[in-house]
């Protein structure tokens, strides 16, 4: 059993387990699955700056902050006690393309030649970590949710605006990967 847990989990194990988070949150406290709201609550708690969007009782939503703290804790436990996933077994074709586009490090979950403190003050690091993060935070709030809130919670509860948002997530991702990333990786 422990040996099985220590292996990387296939999609047909991980996907259904993620799906079960939805009823778990609903039945434990009538909470709808969503993670990007936590970013809004952090803004409301720390820097509301008299912006009406951040003027609400964030403490009522503090469960969401416990939830994301749990995610970080889970990340720690999985990495340090349930075997470090190390190299990700991705399609060799993807590796070839990425090598061609300038990624060298395939040893971990993220390429250290882009995502590391040493790269933070290079143009490429700045674009990938700072600009990328900004787009994630701005876009998700503008869209009213992220992959958890829209793609999983929204679509599974038959909300068609969530389907629209999810299609746009994918379109944005495809356009970026195929037409923009090759240039960003050369920075």
């Amino acid at each position, binding site marked *: 059993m422990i040996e099985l847990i220590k292996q990387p989990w296939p*999609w047909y194990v991980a996907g*259904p387990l*993620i*799906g079960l988070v*939805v*009823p778990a*949150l609903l039945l*434990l*406290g009538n909470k*709808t699955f969503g993670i*990007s709201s936590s*970013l809004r609550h952090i*803004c409301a708690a720390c820097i509301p700056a008299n*912006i009406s*969007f951040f003027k609400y009782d964030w403490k009522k939503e*503090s469960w969401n902050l416990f939830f*994301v703290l749990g*995610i970080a804790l*889970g*990340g*720690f436990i*999985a990495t*340090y006690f349930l075997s470090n*996933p190390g190299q990700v077994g991705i399609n060799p074709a*993807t590796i070839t393309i990425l090598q061609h586009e300038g990624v060298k490090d395939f040893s971990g*979950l*993220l390429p250290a030649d*882009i995502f590391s403190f040493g790269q933070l003050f290079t143009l490429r690091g700045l*674009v990938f*970590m700072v600009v*990328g*993060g*900004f*787009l*994630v*935070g*701005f*876009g*998700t*709030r*503008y*869209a009213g949710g*992220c*992959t958890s809130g829209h*793609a*999983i919670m929204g679509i*599974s509860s*038959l*909300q068609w*605006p969530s389907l*629209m*948002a999810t*299609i746009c997530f*994918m379109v*944005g*991702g495809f356009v*970026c*990967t195929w037409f*923009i990333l090759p240039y*960003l990786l050369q920075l």
Partner: protein
Amino acid sequence: MRNIKYLIIGMLFGIILIKSQVVSWFRIQEMFRLQAFHMYGIIGSAIVVAMISIQIIKRFHIKTINHETVVIHDKKFHWGNVWGGLIFGLGWAITGACPGPLFAQIGSGFLVISVTLLSAITGTWVYGLLRDKLPH
């Protein structure tokens, strides 16, 4: 104390995210290059399981542990779903992470991702600031 249960659910979710490598930048690359089924399988099967669960909850009027009726609010379409969605998609492909995985990556020891998270919080804040001027 009543929030501890959400901490535990989050923890389990974080473990799944790492063990399935959903938090890997490489997995997101593979997905957008259509070179693997992994991410599609995860998101797809998660949606199916969640959908069946919600239908069961509704059909059998299952209550929460506090005996409340389960409420799921309807979402109303606005153009932010489209424009914001496209912007999020760009960021998703660049960072290789959506908000959940950002937290898991930090826990996993990639402390530099705190900068990405901080930047995402800033993005959310700027959205709040500009909200009235943006098309919705």
